[in-house]
Every structure is written in C-alpha cells, then in structure tokens.
C-alpha cells in the first residue's frame, strides 16, 4: 500500500530528533510490549509480514504522532482482534481501543495485492550485474517495494537467497518462495540531476518486483547480448 510508512524521500518533517542519554525503553510498559510482540511472532501467532502490515494500516495521523512502541501496541492488538484471539469486549475500558478516534485501530487490510500469480519456482531469474527495472506498481496490500524505487533502473549486486514473498505472506497467502536481490540504484536515477553523481542507494527486492531492463533500441544489441529469458 502507498501508506504513510513508505517514507523514503518525503519532504517537510524537519530535522532528526536525538536524545542525550538514548534510553532503550522510555517506560516499563514499552519493554514489556517489546517482549509481547516478539514472542507472539516467535509463536507464529502472526507473521512478521502481517505485523508490519498491521502497523502500516494505522491511520496516517495516528501513525505520524504515535511513539514507536505505541505503534507496536496498536499493531499487535489489531491483529489479535482481527484473528479473533481476543474479543473487543475483552478490552472494554481500555482507552486506546475504546472508539477514541485518537487511538483508532489499524484500517481493515485490503488484501488485493497485485501479485496474484506468483511463481513457485525458486530458480534465480537474475544474476549479479544484470540491469533491472523495479516494477511501477501500486498494490493496495502489503509490499516491500517502496515508492521511491518504482519504475527506476538499477543493477543487481547480490543474490541474497530465497525468501517468502511478503505480499502474499502478509495476507495469509503462505510462503511463496522467491529470490531476493540486492539492487543498487544511482542517486541520480532516483532523485534527478541534483543528486551527487556517484552516490547510490542499495535495497533488497524480491524477484517479482523486478523486470529485466529492456533493450535500448538505439544500439540494436539487445540487452547486453544476453538474449531473451
């Protein structure tokens, strides 16, 4: 989803706040909340992809204003309710959930990821050095393809291995295994001529997020002479 969590390159939020003593937790309940979330993930009560998506579905105004572990609390509570493990009546009197618009739960998941027919093959489509384009897609469901790389040209650096596609796993779609590649994008490809010429951003992307860079019609050589796959 093109949510408020997808922050790369956005303007207008101000400087990075830093703390002098940098406490790991700012209240005891944060420490306990950390434990709850991690253990629910360990016990497979929900997947990490589901959890990330639940946090992404927090209404933008709440997301931007909430503290870090408040988002964790809202995200975990939302999933426990959605999965029917706890009932809304269990939380009667608990203010953040009590229909207070300031603390509303995550929006309903829109499970219509555009990645409807993923390949089950784990054969690698790309290899280091291959030129690729990140697909320009706008799925309403969970994805780990950030907006700022969509439609941009990059180069495969490494094959990170085979992992479950979050776009499916966040929506109960199970473990669809695909290669994940480290793809490097020139800063100028992402941000235009204002960016320093040699700087770059690398990001790991699932195979399904990528397409081979099409042949340049001008030189007639066709995709670096590698032919069609």
């Amino acid at each position, binding site marked *: 989803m093109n949510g408020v969590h997808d922050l790369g390159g956005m303007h207008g939020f101000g400087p990075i706040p830093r703390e002098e003593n940098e406490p790991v937790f700012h209240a005891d309940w944060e*420490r306990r909340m950390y434990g709850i979330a991690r253990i629910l993930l360990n016990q497979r009560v929900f997947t990490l992809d589901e959890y990330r998506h639940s946090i992404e579905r927090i209404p933008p105004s709440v997301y931007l204003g909430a503290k870090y572990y408040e988002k964790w609390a809202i995200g975990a509570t939302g999933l426990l309710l959605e999965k029917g493990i706890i009932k809304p009546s269990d939380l009667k009197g608990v203010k953040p959930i009590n229909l207070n618009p300031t603390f509303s739960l995550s929006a309903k998941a829109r499970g219509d990821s555009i990645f409807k027919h993923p390949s089950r093959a784990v054969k690698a489509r790309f290899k280091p050095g291959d030129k690729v384009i990140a697909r320009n897609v706008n799925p309403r469901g969970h994805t780990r393809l950030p907006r700022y790389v969509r439609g941009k040209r990059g180069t495969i650096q*490494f094959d990170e291995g085979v992992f479950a596609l979050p776009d499916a796993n966040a929506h109960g779609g199970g473990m669809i295994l695909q290669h*994940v590649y480290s793809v490097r994008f020139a800063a100028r490809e992402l941000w235009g001529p204002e960016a320093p010429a040699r700087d770059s951003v690398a990001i790991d992307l699932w195979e399904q997020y990528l397409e081979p860079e099409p042949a340049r019609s001008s030189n007639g050589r066709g995709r670096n002479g590698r032919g069609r796959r």
Partner: protein
Amino acid sequence: MSHAHTPGNGGAEHPAAPTVDEITDFEVLEIAVRELAIEHGLFTAEDHRRFTEWAESIGPAAGSRLVAKAWVDPAFKERVLKDAVKACKEIGIDWAEPTGFGTPSDYMNLRVLEDTPTLHHVIVCTLCSCYPRPLLGMSPEWYRTTNYRRRLVRWPRQVLAEFGLVLPPEVEIRVEDSNQKCRFMVLPVRPAGTENWTEEQLAEIVTRDCMIGVALPRPGRTADVHPMHRARRPVGSSRD
C-alpha cells in the same frame, strides 16, 4: 467482562492503593493484551520474562568486537565479508539465539559492508526499523524516526553532516535501505594513529554510530555523543 487488569479506572476502585507513577493509556493496553495472551495460552509469563531479558542483554559491544577483530586479522575479515553470520560465532554471537532459529525479524542473514577511503556506507530502514540486533543491540530512537527514515535515502550528505560527519564530494556514499530479509552493518576504515593498538583498544572507538555509518571511528572518540546541528545545510541546495 471484568478484568483485574483494567487499572484505567483503577484509581476510583482502589483509592488507597499506593501509586508510583500515573498509568498511561498505552500501559493499560499493554497490561490487558499481555494478560489476555497469557490467559489464552499464547505464551507464559516465564516465556515473556525470558525474552524481555534477552532483549536487554544485547548491545553494540558485539559489533565493536567484530570490527576490531576484522581490523587486526585479515583472514577473519575475509570470513566476515563472505559469511557474516558464520563469522559472528567466532566472537561468540549466535544469530540463532534466543530461540534456536533466530528471532522473527532478525533473520539469520547478515552482510557486512566494507568502507574504503573513498567509499562510505550508511544504513537505514525506510519502511520500518530493521536493525542488526544480535550485533548492535536495540536500535536508537533516532534510527526509527520518520525523519531519519525519509531523509537518509534522499539527502545522505546532509543527514551525516547533522551527525557531525561531513564527507568530501570525492567520497562515494552508498545508502543501504535495509528493510527486507538481510541485516547490514558497516565495517569502517581503521583510522590512522591506531597502528599498535590491541583489539580491546580498537573496539572502544568502534561505537554503534560507526557501525550504522553515521560516524567514523577515531582515536579518543569512545562514545556516541551527538552535537545538535539544527537547520544546518552544509551540502548542496536541497530544501528538505
């Protein structure tokens, strides 16, 4: 359904109870969720205590040791760059802890990014807050802020300058947007003036910020102290 753990209205119910701090709405929610989860058999109080203690036992010292060892032992450095999770075992860090299969967000997949005098790496997670916890401990608050996440991929030089690190234009910056299944850590360049230092001495100057990539190690710098440089735009004409 009435729970003992709804102290949101507890003040009225137990006026005589001694209170240390005022309980916040989110603390009420945390207590409710934890007690419900235990009631429903999702985990035990003991499981919860064990995992929370593990989270508090980790810190950046492990990463510092790894960097210091890599600086003095070229063969170890090669192993770190080739298979970092495996190399971590040599310094006593097992990415499979505390569960036997790692933790669900600290995948057993780590790549260490080696800096050179003309190449600088810096790490961010634009989509959430992915971080190499087994080596660096819990992430600092600033790393998770919307401002660090949105800005680093777009204005790395300005962000680094705010952290007090002004890199000359001839140094190439590679930002690693670490938000998938692999975790990353920076292996900085060993600074001049440390030639005869022991591993322990070297580890002291490899602070957490050096391994995220927002600082460089140097003799005498043993803590991540952040001078605030508000509204400073030393590089380019960017209006962010």
